[in-house]
């Protein structure tokens, strides 16, 4: 097993290359998922504000 990880003396080049491959692709895959979640959360907040505003204008104001 240690023979495998040694990569014939080239471990310092082979494993970082594979690490870059996986880290970059993982970041590429996760970023749109986070972006989608954030956008949906913002949209929900906007919709909630809208309905609250509509609700306020529908009921007669108290202080006038």
């Amino acid at each position, binding site marked *: 097993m240690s023979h*495998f990880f040694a*990569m*014939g*003396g*080239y471990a310092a*080049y*082979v494993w*970082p*290359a*594979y690490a*870059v*491959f996986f880290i*970059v*692709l993982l*970041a*590429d*895959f996760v*970023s*749109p*998922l986070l*972006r*989608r979640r954030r*956008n*949906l*959360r913002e*949209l*929900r907040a906007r*919709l*909630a504000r809208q309905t609250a505003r509509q609700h306020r204008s529908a009921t007669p104001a108290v202080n006038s």
Partner: protein
Amino acid sequence: MSKWIPLWLHKLGSPPIFYRFAGTLRPWFLGLALVAGAVALYGGLALAPADYQQGDAYRIIFIHVPSAWMGLFIYGVMAVASFVALVWRIKLAEAVAMESAPIGAAFTFITLVTGSLWGKPMWGTWWTWDARLTSELVLLFLYLGVIGLYHAFEDRRQGARAAAFLAIIGIINVPIVHFSVNWWNTLHQGSTVRILGPSKISASMLWPLLTMMVATKLYYVASLFGRVRADLLELESGKDWVRRIATENSVPGEQA
């Protein structure tokens, strides 16, 4: 719309239908990509023998070459989608073109870094300004230029059109990258795998390489679908179908 375009294809261009279609298929593409990638890694790192000249350092080929192919392939997809977006003004084509750019940039970046890590032990240098390496760096800058131009405009669709122009003009670099090893004398080795004629590589090394190529293609589709879905939600945030998704997806614990 012209008569020769089938109705299902026309429908697939509609954002809500594509959103659902991509959402259903994305996990399958990702799953297949992971399976193919795992098989390719086992074949490349464990089963394939060491190279008679390069020892085990050559094993970087199993990610370097598929990434390089993807960098060029995705550029082609981006340019075609850009052309469709400019000519027919299809929103989905804009999304495909603009969301392909970051994936292509990621693969091109991987190609440059893994190539550098391969070049140090084999050539004795991290970097050299020869034709293949320089044109590959230009490819990365083209991707970054497309991404930057897209985000430089206040209006997203206007930005997409400007960036689409750059994407189409930049396609000239793709054959330059591909043929650079033949046209100029470079430190970079020539093509190992050929579509026409026999490949200059043994079968035990070739099949992990081709399997990884399939895995990266599948991954691209999965990543693109995820990105286009996120993009469509932003582009259409005022529409009813997006509002429905927003209200349906409200997490119980979260303040809706």
